[in-house]
């Protein structure tokens, strides 16, 4: 038995919601009958291949495409010069200096990271397109390379001349009074440097699209795997000098996203230009090595000069830190990472005085973009590192110090120092479940037993929050001129002519099981089995069932996606009840929807209309309905959560609405000879409020945990001093395989969200807990071998071995000043 699932602590009366109904998506996917974008073909389609920069930084002296064009079967090429003529730079979200950066779909005059697309070629086959790309001659003049954020800050080399600085954005967030908290503290724990590394969740399906241009209407259709088309279109349309109505995004099945499929607009704009230029459908499927080299890295962040205020009893009252974020060559979505962490400013803890001096810089590395746990994970890792370093230095118990400092269940809803509201949760109770699962009471005994075998055993906790349902108004904390705020998602529900219930989502699932969970919600509302509900696969702009922020990202489907589904289903239900009341000549209060019928409660058996009758009346047989009665049985609903406004002066406001809790606990053994870390016990406890489908929730917990384990122990994008990525594919970038994954124990509790339409919180991004707990467990294991401090979020054997060899080097990072 590898998995233990706890029973929910709260049980609400539900129908299909709350049941682990097997997923309906699976039947096609297990037969190879899913449709991924690369499966779609068009007559006369050309294959696109990008010519990419082999250098991290250089001037483009010349590009010669003539030899490629001579090759039989090559349809055409596109270069940065053409892009600069036919498009405008993508809009930048930051204020100056980052706001002045000019970012085009292909490199214009200069390359700024290895793998940056410089030209594109389109040919009759994939192989030919690659051959042709090899024939495109690009001459470069190399420039000095920046791979280190602190070096970049010096501005001795500047990546973007228009910006005049490598700084994208900087600002100070100051809540409470941290100076006073430090002055009044009994101990001040100082940590010079902590480093959160670069990695990404690397979905198994790479990015890509099939793009068709309709010359007659000026419209592009993108059959693609963009996970946030609403934002994609906002980026692309102005750059292409067209309206958003000219971009139709279509998705079918998507092979994982994890945030890595949000920043695809540069490549998609190239495809749009190519399709228009050549007058034929064009297709691009990213190669794995290109995905690793030049698509979507998670943010790398260095935390400097941390000071923590601690009272004699172990209460922590505040901290200050300088955060230096490295977004790679272009910020794109990224300046948002400078603020999104603030959704979880205090982590799970009650400290009220926090100052974060945040700066983001460009370097000659792959652009960063959202990655599962986006920006919050880095910050939560900081808070967890602080807790464990303080505990180690002051001799506090890691369990007790957490319980002392956690926000308490009775404080919920809890307002954070920056005006966010933690909606519900019981962190201490979740921790207890995790401790039970790993048999915490036996740790010291197991430590001794491991020591007898020459192994170092360690135990660690990772507490984390999965904040969901973004308030895009937080972008105005970066740039008050930005015209974004709030959030929205749409869905449509209709009852069709033969009684079919059809649901269309605005969300863009990539494996989260939306077709199943949406059917559960609709079935409960309309009173029919979920099998009767057809939830259409994927997203299509032409369904008109999307909103400005449509997509699947930032843990919000359970709130906005299902909120929209619920809203639309309730409108259809109202129509059905009114129609049935009219036909059966009964008051609306007497009508119930159940078992696929609209019927009179406790009425005679024949006083019941099957859904088919209702659908047929409205759609095909409606002459007898009175003129002032017009039920449509077809409704679109937009779920627009309420946030209020943010205060751009104080940098406060409700930045997100729901907070799912994840508490992870791990027991590891370290081989002191090699630095190898083996996970011997692992538990993850999730509290995402009401679970629509507990099995799907548990699957998300497993997956997020696997990402964390990979990130904590092996996955790292490593650059050499020339800006060459050394881990450019699965050969060198080791993701967990079946043999690497330990047995996972999972536990769950349900603290319903008081603000979400179904009491369900967005979830799936809490995997950071694994990075936190493994770092803590390694530090705990190393206590017996020189007491090293874990200062990096990635700890492969060579780094652990170094800490074993020279623990003092890590300890030099830390100082305790006691009064």
């Amino acid at each position: 038995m590898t998995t233990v699932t706890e029973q929910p602590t709260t049980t609400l009366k539900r129908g299909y919601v709350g049941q682990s109904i097997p997923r309906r998506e699976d039947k096609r996917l297990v037969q190879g009958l899913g449709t991924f974008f690369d499966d779609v073909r068009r007559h006369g389609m050309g294959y696109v291949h990008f010519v990419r920069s082999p250098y991290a930084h250089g001037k483009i002296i010349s590009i010669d495409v003539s030899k490629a064009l001579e090759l039989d079967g090559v349809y055409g090429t596109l270069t940065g010069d053409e892009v600069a003529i036919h498009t405008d730079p993508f809009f930048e979200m930051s204020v100056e200096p980052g706001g002045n950066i000019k970012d085009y779909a292909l490199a214009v005059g200069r390359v700024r990271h290895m793998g940056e697309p410089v030209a594109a070629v389109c040919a009759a086959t994939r192989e030919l397109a690659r051959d042709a790309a090899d024939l495109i001659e690009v001459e470069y003049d190399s420039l000095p390379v920046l791979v280190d954020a602190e070096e970049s800050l010096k501005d001795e080399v500047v990546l973007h001349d228009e910006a005049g600085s490598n700084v994208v954005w900087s600002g100070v967030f100051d809540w409470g009074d941290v100076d006073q908290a430090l002055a009044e503290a009994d101990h001040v724990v100082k940590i010079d440097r902590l480093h959160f590394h670069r990695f990404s969740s690397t979905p198994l399906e790479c990015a890509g699209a099939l793009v068709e241009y309709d010359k007659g209407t000026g419209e592009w259709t993108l059959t693609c795997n963009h996970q946030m088309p609403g934002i994609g279109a906002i980026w692309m349309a102005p750059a292409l000098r067209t309206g958003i109505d000219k971009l139709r995004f279509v998705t079918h099945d998507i092979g994982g996203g994890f945030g890595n499929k949000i920043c695809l607009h540069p490549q998609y704009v190239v495809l749009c230009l190519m399709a228009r230029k050549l007058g034929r459908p064009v297709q691009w499927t990213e190669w794995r090595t290109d995905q690793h080299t030049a698509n979507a890295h998670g943010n790398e962040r260095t935390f400097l000069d941390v000071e923590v205020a601690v009272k004699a009893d172990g209460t922590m009252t505040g901290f200050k830190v300088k955060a230096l974020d490295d977004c790679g060559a272009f910020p794109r979505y990224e300046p948002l990472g400078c603020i999104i962490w603030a959704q979880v400013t205090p982590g799970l803890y009650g400290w009220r005085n926090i100052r974060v001096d945040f700066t983001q810089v460009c370097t000659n590395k792959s652009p960063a973009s959202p990655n599962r746990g986006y920006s919050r994970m880095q910050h939560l890792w900081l808070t967890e590192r602080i807790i464990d370093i303080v505990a180690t230095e002051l001799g506090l118990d890691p369990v007790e110090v957490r319980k002392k400092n956690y926000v308490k269940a009775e404080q919920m809803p809890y307002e954070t120092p920056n005006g966010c509201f933690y909606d519900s949760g019981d962190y201490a109770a979740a921790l207890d479940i995790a401790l039970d699962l790993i048999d915490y009471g036996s740790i010291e005994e197991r430590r001794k037993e491991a020591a007898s075998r020459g192994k170092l055993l360690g135990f660690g906790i990772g507490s984390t929050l999965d904040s969901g349902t973004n308030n895009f108004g937080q972008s105005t904390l970066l740039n008050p001129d930005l015209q974004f705020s709030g959030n929205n998602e749409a869905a449509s529900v209709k009852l069709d002519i033969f009684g079919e219930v059809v649901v269309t989502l605005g969300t863009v699932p990539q494996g989260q099981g939306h077709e199943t969970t949406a059917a559960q919600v609709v079935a409960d509302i309309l009173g029919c089995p979920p099998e009767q509900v057809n939830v259409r696969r994927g997203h299509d702009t032409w369904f008109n069932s999307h909103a400005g922020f449509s997509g699947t990202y930032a843990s919000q489907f359970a709130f906005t996606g299902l909120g929209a589904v619920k809203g639309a289903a309730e409108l259809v239900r109202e129509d059905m009840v009114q129609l049935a009341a009219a036909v059966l000549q009964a008051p609306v209060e007497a009508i119930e929807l159940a078992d696929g019928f609209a019927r009179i409660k406790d009425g005679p058996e024949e006083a019941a209309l099957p859904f088919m009758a209702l659908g047929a009346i409205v759609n095909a047989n409606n002459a007898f309905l009175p003129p002032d009665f017009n039920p449509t049985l077809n409704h679109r609903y937009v779920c627009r959560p309420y946030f209020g406004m943010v205060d751009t002066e104080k940098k406060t406001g409700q930045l997100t609405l729901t907070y799912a809790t994840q508490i992870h606990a791990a027991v590891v053994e370290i081989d002191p000879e090699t630095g190898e870390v083996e996970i011997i016990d692992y538990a993850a406890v999730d509290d995402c409020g009401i679970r629509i489908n507990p099995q799907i929730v548990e699957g998300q917990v497993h997956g997020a945990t696997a990402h964390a384990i990979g990130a904590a122990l092996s996955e790292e994008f490593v650059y050499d001093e020339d800006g060459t990525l050394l881990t450019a594919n699965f050969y060198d970038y080791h993701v967990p395989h079946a043999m690497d994954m330990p047995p996972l124990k999972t536990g769950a509790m349900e603290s319903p969200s008081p603000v979400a339409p179904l009491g369900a919180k967005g979830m799936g991004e809490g995997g950071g807990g694994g990075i936190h707990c493994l770092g803590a467990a390694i530090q705990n294991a190393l206590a017996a071998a020189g007491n090293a401090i874990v200062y990096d979020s990635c700890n492969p054997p060579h780094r652990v071995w170094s800490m074993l060899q020279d623990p003092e080097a890590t300890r030099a990072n830390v100082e305790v000043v006691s009064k």
Partner: protein
Amino acid sequence: MGAPARSRAISLEVNGEQIELEVAARRLLVHVIRDDLGLTGTHVGCDTGNCGACTIHLDGEPVKSCMMLAVQADGAKIGTIEGLAGDGELTPLQQAFNTHHALQCGYCTPGMLMSATALLERNPHPTEDEVRYALQGNICRCTGYVNIVEAVVAAGGGSA
């Protein structure tokens, strides 16, 4: 000696059907399966032979179809994911994947199923460790393998 042939006629038996076709000498077997035969259930997830999304059966053995040229498969019997469920009736393993929630995005799933099917053919009742060993060449980025392992063990009559 003349120039090497740029293409060649090959014959394959694919999911029980005999197929003759002319393929470019350099064309990978996976691209023939996907692009020429239209069997798009076999996926491509990497360019280094690491991920296993393209796993098929070649004369009964699981192989990564991106790691060989189509011409090397001349005369072989090929089984793809589309051939597993005969008339839409799922195999017990496919059913177990559904019951145990062993897939999320479904992109690695065909390769996983082909590897696991081959395992169950040579070892009908594998242990958890045997399943993990057999699937180590297949990467999944969604599930952490927990439920995949559980499903394969269950399909073999055991419990993980």
